[in-house]
């Protein structure tokens, strides 16, 4: 177990006794397995310049035990799914008689750094692709296999595996060039109030991070830790599932996972976290 400093403990105790609805993110450092040093608190990215004073990973907004779970792969239940995906990586599927490893060989070598730059522009398809879309493109075009469900466990586990080998590397998605149109669309969505509660993403995650929304501690809403193992549903959760949950909570009709709207939103939100380390699979409550 990792120890928080006595000062941190005092601070949070003070916040509770004061009865304030504000709970500062906890100061702590994240080192996974004693070797991967994570950047979890850093300078604002270009996207959020003038909007946020600093970038803070969602890790800092969670409890001591939850933070400790992510610091060790044995304690991180998300790694169970990564292990399953490692098996899938080497499993031949589809008419072409190929597995992921037929082309990409060792995942730790070939996929290093990939998570950090997605979503990104695909030159051939002339579209912005999320990691999920790329996995399915590989499956249907190269393996001639059935695509996986966008937020299925198999898909999210595979994304977690690909993400896990990039842990510690800074998120660095492109926002200009061919993706700029999609990025603008995502930004538009981020600041659009939706639902009966008329809340935009920014109302919670930009204006009110650090405060409590009922029992939940609002983070800055970065997606550098996705897929996320959530203690509340004991499984890996994909970015689009999380978007869906958030929009539903504003009492709005949500977009579908994998829809152009969510792809655009993912690109924009990912770029807000440029500079934070890739953490996925992370652990949250």
């Amino acid at each position, binding site marked *: 177990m990792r120890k928080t400093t006595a000062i941190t403990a005092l601070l949070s105790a003070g916040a509770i006794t004061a009865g304030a609805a504000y709970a500062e993110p906890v100061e702590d450092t994240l080192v996974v397995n004693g070797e991967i040093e994570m950047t979890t608190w850093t300078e604002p990215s270009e996207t959020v310049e003038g909007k946020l004073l600093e970038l803070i990973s969602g890790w800092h907004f969670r409890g001591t035990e939850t933070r400790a779970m992510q610091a060790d792969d044995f304690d991180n239940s998300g790694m*169970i799914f990564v*292990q399953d995906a490692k098996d899938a990586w080497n499993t031949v599927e589809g008419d072409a008689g190929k597995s992921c490893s037929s082309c990409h060989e060792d995942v730790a070598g070939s996929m290093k750094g990939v998570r950090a730059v997605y979503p990104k522009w695909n030159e051939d398809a002339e579209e912005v692709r999320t990691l999920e879309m790329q996995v399915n493109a590989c499956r249907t075009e190269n393996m001639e296999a059935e695509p996986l469900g966008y937020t299925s466990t198999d898909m999210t586990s595979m994304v977690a595996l690909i993400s896990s080998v990039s842990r510690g590397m800074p998120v660095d998605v492109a926002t200009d060039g061919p993706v700029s149109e999609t990025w603008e669309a995502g930004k538009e969505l981020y600041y659009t109030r939706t639902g009966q509660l008329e809340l935009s993403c920014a109302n919670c995650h930009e204006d009110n991070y650090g405060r409590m929304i009922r029992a939940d501690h609002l983070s800055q809403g970065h997606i550098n830790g996705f897929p996320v193992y959530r203690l509340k549903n004991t499984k890996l959760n994909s970015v689009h599932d999380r978007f869906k949950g958030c929009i539903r909570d504003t009492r709005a009709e949500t977009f579908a996972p994998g829809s152009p709207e969510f792809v655009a939103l993912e690109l924009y939100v990912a770029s807000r976290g440029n500079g934070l380390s890739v953490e996925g699979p992370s652990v949250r409550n």
Partner: protein
Amino acid sequence: MAENVRPRVKAPRQASAGDSVTIKTLISHPMESGQRKDSDGNTIPRSIIHRFTCEFNGEMVVDVTMEPAISTNPYFEFDAVVPEAGDFKFTWYDDDGDVYEDTSSVVMA
């Protein structure tokens, strides 16, 4: 039949005689309680791991009875004194009759 059951153990590979070492175990398992119903209203049958044991060179270290209220992917962490070099043997007993085993060897430092 529970799927994707995978036992995992983290134990030191080296210790001095008489050392107390920390052992962590986790097995991925849905731990279906038998209390839930599916969308048609039928009870989902109970399917849990009901016993977990750890032995060292044949001697019992812990023997745990588990009940349906235990959550998915049961995790156990405990300390054990290592008197000599040898093997920890971990065994999980599933409701469906399956037995999952794992071992971890310790050498003297």
